[in-house]
């Protein structure tokens, strides 16, 4: 069973619809629910980094999420959900993230990115082979909407990048933990393929 963490951080319905479209079952997971029965977990999210971390802390979800990641089961962060995987972030005041992917979340450089937020369809540059990208073409356009990006400490953990005037990490991965800065659930065929690949992944890379 694929779990989607529901902490009022955005459009869960679309993520669930995409999982169901891929032929898998999705369940919404709330604070306090046991995570033992889940095979996979998705942390979606839109909004503000600091506000979201505060919400995870208030609902005592930080340790359960770290434990899930440590269990080796596949864990996907989408958009803000990917940024929350980082060690730290600047949005809403600098502070810690979940610390699952060493790196820092910073705002786009206004001198390089003409329009912020970076909204719309942009191409993926695939840098590394990863189970998440099986049958996804290099250059595939996917849908982004964000003003901040995750800057991983280890460049080897960037699986695909994207160019918004400034090159940034579009997909990151560290073992069983992966993150997509774009919205696969709103990215048509390529996005649905990524969701399906995630649902069928065993977490090894």
């Amino acid at each position, binding site marked *: 069973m694929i779990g989607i963490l529901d902490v009022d951080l*955005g*459009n*869960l*319905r*679309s993520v669930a*619809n*995409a999982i169901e*479209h891929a032929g898998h079952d999705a369940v919404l997971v709330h604070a306090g629910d046991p995570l033992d029965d889940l095979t996979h977990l998705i942390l979606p999210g*839109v*909004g*503000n980094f600091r*506000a979201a971390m505060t919400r995870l802390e208030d609902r005592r979800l930080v340790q359960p999420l770290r434990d899930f990641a440590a269990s080796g089961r596949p864990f996907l962060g989408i958009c*803000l959900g990917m940024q929350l995987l980082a060690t730290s972030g600047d949005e809403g005041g600098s502070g810690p993230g979940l610390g699952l992917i060493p790196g820092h979340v910073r705002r786009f450089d*206004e001198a390089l990115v003409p*329009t*912020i*937020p*970076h*909204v*719309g*369809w*942009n*191409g993926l540059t695939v840098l590394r082979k990863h189970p998440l990208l099986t049958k996804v073409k290099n250059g595939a*356009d996917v*849908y*982004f*909407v*964000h*003003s901040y990006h995750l800057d991983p400490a280890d460049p080897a953990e960037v699986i695909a990048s994207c*160019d*918004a005037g400034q090159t940034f990490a579009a997909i990151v991965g560290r073992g069983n933990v992966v993150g997509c800065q774009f*919205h696969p*659930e*709103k*990215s*048509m065929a390529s*996005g*649905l393929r990524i969701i399906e690949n995630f649902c069928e992944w065993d977490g090894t890379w």
Partner: protein
Amino acid sequence: MLTKRVIVCLDVRAGQVTKGVKFQGNIDLGDPVDFAARYDAQGADELVFYDITASAEKRGLFVDVVRRVAERIFIPFAVGGGIRSVENMREVLLAGAEKVSLNSPAVRDPALISAGARAFGSQCVVLGIDARRVDPTATIPSGYEVVIDGGRTPTGMDVVAWARQAEALGAGEICLNAIDTDGVRQGYELNITCRVAEAVRIPVIASGGGGRPEHLIDAVTKGKAEAALVASMVHYGDYTVADIKTAMAQSGVPIRH
């Protein structure tokens, strides 16, 4: 490279896609989910549904449309019309919409923009501005006045100043609809589109006046818009979204394939 977007706009009344016809009220064109699927297949980058249902009790029908579209269509879509509160926003976002479009209620209560941005993030909040050309004055130096209630009520506000204020309040995009060119299909109002695009850092969507593919090319080049909205030029079969995007690509505009 970020591609320029073609956004298809659909008016929905009592659960049906509808189109206003002069002196004859509205005619129903069909099921919104079928329309959405057709435009998705043609390569539309985004959709926007406007609820033009007059009565409050039919509101549930619209939320049901949003839910049904989200089950079938895996591209982003926005929802506008009748959104007056954070609770209204939550309702359509939870049903599967990606963004909400605010217009007249945001003019009456600008705090609605910041409340929406705080609750759901700026990327969820599109500010719709209806702009009408007027003689420039001290309070309206751009020569474009914000009008509300479908163009019936002038506000005395300058379009460029309102766009800047909305950006500061947390709007994530601006959909600039030129009342003078709307429905005329003679091209977007490039002058004000470009001025707003230069005044803010957030993306500007050109709206009102699209009739031929060249108009969209102009909007994203001379008008400096990130996206352009189309309605009647695709609803009546004059062009498909694919026709428009092919023409854009041929003229060197980056588009999603």
